[in-house]
């Protein structure tokens, strides 16, 4: 805070030899403001004692936090923000961006190979297939968010439409599968001429495209009326739609099972062959010893394939006229309109495509968990996916993948670090701080690196030679 005053105060004091008094004064002011901000909410904790509300006092925590802010500000004033420092001239891509460009040809295949070999690696590291369950589950979680991030990236990163209700399409996909797979009439219909177990075994493979189609259809239905709105209205309306869908899922008990959700959803099969220990199970047919992990590893490869399809489709779409229209729309909507693009259709196609991939991911979520309930589709999930897209750099595929891995995997890893518990006490749970960090990171990224941490992007079209463009040199238009 008070960045401007820091500079002006520093400039005045810095004309002499010493900048210390100005820096001290500024740090003191910052500390005072921090005290005012943190004092009420951190200094006092409302606790329920014997049914009545009382206060607990935490002056030490406030003192430490304010002290850190004061010291940090003082050090920054004396070093980085010091007026005596020569200004740094920057042109072209920054060192990180250049590094990324340099290693990117090798980075993508390496990441791809790592993703393919991950289950084997996990099993080798932990010393057995059954022991690697935790790691592979984590891999599935990360890949689900990579896929969701890539799906939302089409809407936010490519077309520049802020969608805060992406979780709605995730929910539509999940409920499509859950409802179709557990539905009695559908089951009876297939049982009448294709055999009793047909639907239980094939439900996932039939529902996967259906889920994507339904989600895409919902994207069109929801998108058509609202896509004429300007950007920030669109964000709020999509947010409202996300909440409406969740509330309907909770309250329409006859159809969706209400808050209790839908349980015992059929599991995924290896293209019709169930992962059971029986005669016609996967293990027996392939001559393997039965292990429940086969299903988990298979699920890992399913979500990997789905994520790769999303990435591949996006890359190819970007080269088509519609993909270029998306990017043009993001840069300048008015210019697009004056060049004769039907902006509503262009937006709608981006919205529906993004929604479709959300639907695929939702269908996968339902088959992996075997249980869906409205609890899994809150605004927090939308916010998390958006944060991943923003952190990865809107429009950058590899950035989104890295951001998903860091944010989802990193948080999981933090939970297992013992020394954090020693520092902050036994009740410390990093997952409580996850959304806090997500929120903070979104603000910080917008201020320091609006193009994302990996702020380099390949131009989609170029003359003769492809040149890397630094994120800081590209500015999006005001549509």
């Amino acid at each position: 805070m008070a960045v401007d005053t820091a500079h002006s105060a520093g400039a005045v004091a810095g004309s002499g030899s010493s900048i210390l008094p100005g820096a001290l004064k500024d740090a003191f002011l910052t500390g005072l403001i921090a005290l005012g901000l943190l004092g009420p909410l951190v200094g006092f904790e409302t606790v329920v004692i014997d049914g009545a509300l009382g206060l607990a006092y935490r002056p030490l925590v406030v003192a430490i936090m304010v002290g850190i802010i004061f010291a940090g500000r003082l050090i920054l004033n004396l070093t980085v923000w010091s007026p005596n420092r020569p200004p740094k001239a920057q042109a072209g891509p920054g060192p990180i961006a250049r590094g990324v460009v340099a290693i990117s040809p090798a980075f993508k295949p390496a990441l791809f190979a790592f993703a393919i070999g991950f289950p084997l690696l996990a099993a080798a590291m932990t010393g057995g297939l059954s022991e690697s369950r935790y790691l592979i589950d984590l891999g599935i979680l990360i890949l689900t968010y990579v896929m969701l991030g890539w799906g939302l990236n089409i809407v936010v990163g490519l077309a520049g439409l802020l969608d805060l209700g992406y979780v709605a399409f995730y929910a539509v996909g999940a409920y499509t599968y859950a409802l179709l797979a557990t539905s009695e009439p559908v089951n009876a219909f297939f049982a009448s001429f294709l055999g009793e177990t047909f639907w239980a075994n094939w439900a996932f493979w039939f529902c996967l495209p259906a889920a994507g189609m339904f989600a895409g259809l919902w994207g069109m239905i929801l998108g058509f009326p609202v896509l004429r709105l300007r950007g920030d209205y669109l964000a709020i309306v999509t947010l409202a739609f996300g909440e409406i869908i969740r509330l309907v899922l909770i309250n329409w008990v006859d159809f969706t099972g209400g808050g209790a959700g839908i349980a015992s959803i059929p599991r995924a099969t290896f293209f019709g062959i169930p992962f059971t220990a029986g005669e016609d199970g996967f293990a027996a047919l392939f001559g393997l010893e039965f292990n429940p992990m086969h299903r988990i590893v298979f699920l890992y490869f399913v979500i990997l394939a789905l994520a790769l399809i999303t990435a591949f489709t996006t890359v190819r779409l970007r080269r088509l006229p519609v993909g270029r229209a998306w990017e043009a729309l993001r840069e300048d909507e008015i210019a697009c309109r004056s060049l004769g693009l039907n902006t509503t259709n262009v937006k709608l196609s981006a919205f529906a495509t993004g929604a479709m991939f959300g639907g695929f991911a939702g269908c996968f979520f339902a088959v992996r968990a075997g249980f869906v309930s409205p609890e899994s589709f809150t605004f927090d999930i939308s916010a998390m996916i958006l944060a991943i897209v923003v952190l990865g750099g809107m429009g950058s595929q590899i950035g989104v993948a890295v951001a998903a891995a860091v944010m989802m995997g990193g948080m999981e890893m933090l939970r297992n670090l013992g020394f954090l518990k020693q520092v902050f006490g036994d009740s410390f749970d990093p997952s409580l701080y996850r959304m806090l960090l997500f929120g903070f990171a979104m603000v910080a990224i917008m201020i320091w690196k609006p193009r994302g941490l990996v702020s380099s992007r390949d131009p989609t079209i170029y003359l003769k030679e492809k040149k890397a463009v630094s994120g800081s040199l590209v500015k999006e238009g005001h549509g």
Partner: protein
Amino acid sequence: MDVFVQQLINGLTLGSIYGLIAIGYTMVFGIIGMVNFAHGDVFMVSSFIALICFLLVTTVLGITSIFLALAIVLVVAMFFTSLMNWAIERVAYRPLRGSFRLAPMISAIGMSIFLANFVQVAQGPRNKPVPPMITDVIVIMERDGYQVTLAWKQIIIMVLTTVLLAGFWYLVQKTSLGRAQRAVEQDRKMAALLGINVDHTISLTFVIGAALAAVAGTMYLMYYGVANFADGFVPGVKAFTAAVLGGIGSLPGAVLGGLLIGLIEVFWSAYFSIEYKDVAAFSILAITLIFLPQGLLGRPEVEKV
């Protein structure tokens, strides 16, 4: 008829609270053209500040007069909430002026998530019940054992809202600060050329918006007797709906929209289904934006290149 009158009173009370929050949205939108997504959470934080201050005043200072306590709580909550919103504008929005279109919006969403989770971490996720502050009611109608009551706290909320709005109206229409605000709203560059401190004016807009949200937060705490970290989201969206319904950028519109949303919500709960009351409010938002994007009292939007 009795039920109708009772719901009318409840709806107007709730609508006053929404109206106070909606002014914060509409002013910020008017002056810098962004939806301050974090405003609902600022409102939530203000109710926590009010709660803490109330506990301090009643237990530590031992003030027994409930009206004196409320007055102190109101002033303290307004001060700290304004400070917070000032800092938020300074840190999260000011550096982004002139950045690309989505940047301030994303920053505001991040700020909203940050505030909600900050309160969750600092104060715990559980509901914080407050002892009822003012319980007296006035019975204004009675038939077949059904009493139509007007609670004192409802009177306080409505009177306070009216007084604040009158003062606020005076501030915007008659003082130099209000003139500066309207000038910045019309043309920021021209206002700067004419010697208006634009940054200062925008900061003050955020401060005023937060102060009104703090009044709403204190009233909300007094009315419902409970504070929760997640309570910023839904009232925030509803207040935004109110601002849009009344015509975003228009101050009387925000109040009118707030009252309408309050009434619609209460009547919907009473006559249709209470489960779908949020769906009703969110649907109104979508319907308004699609069919009446300029709102009831707003000016039609002119797109500049």
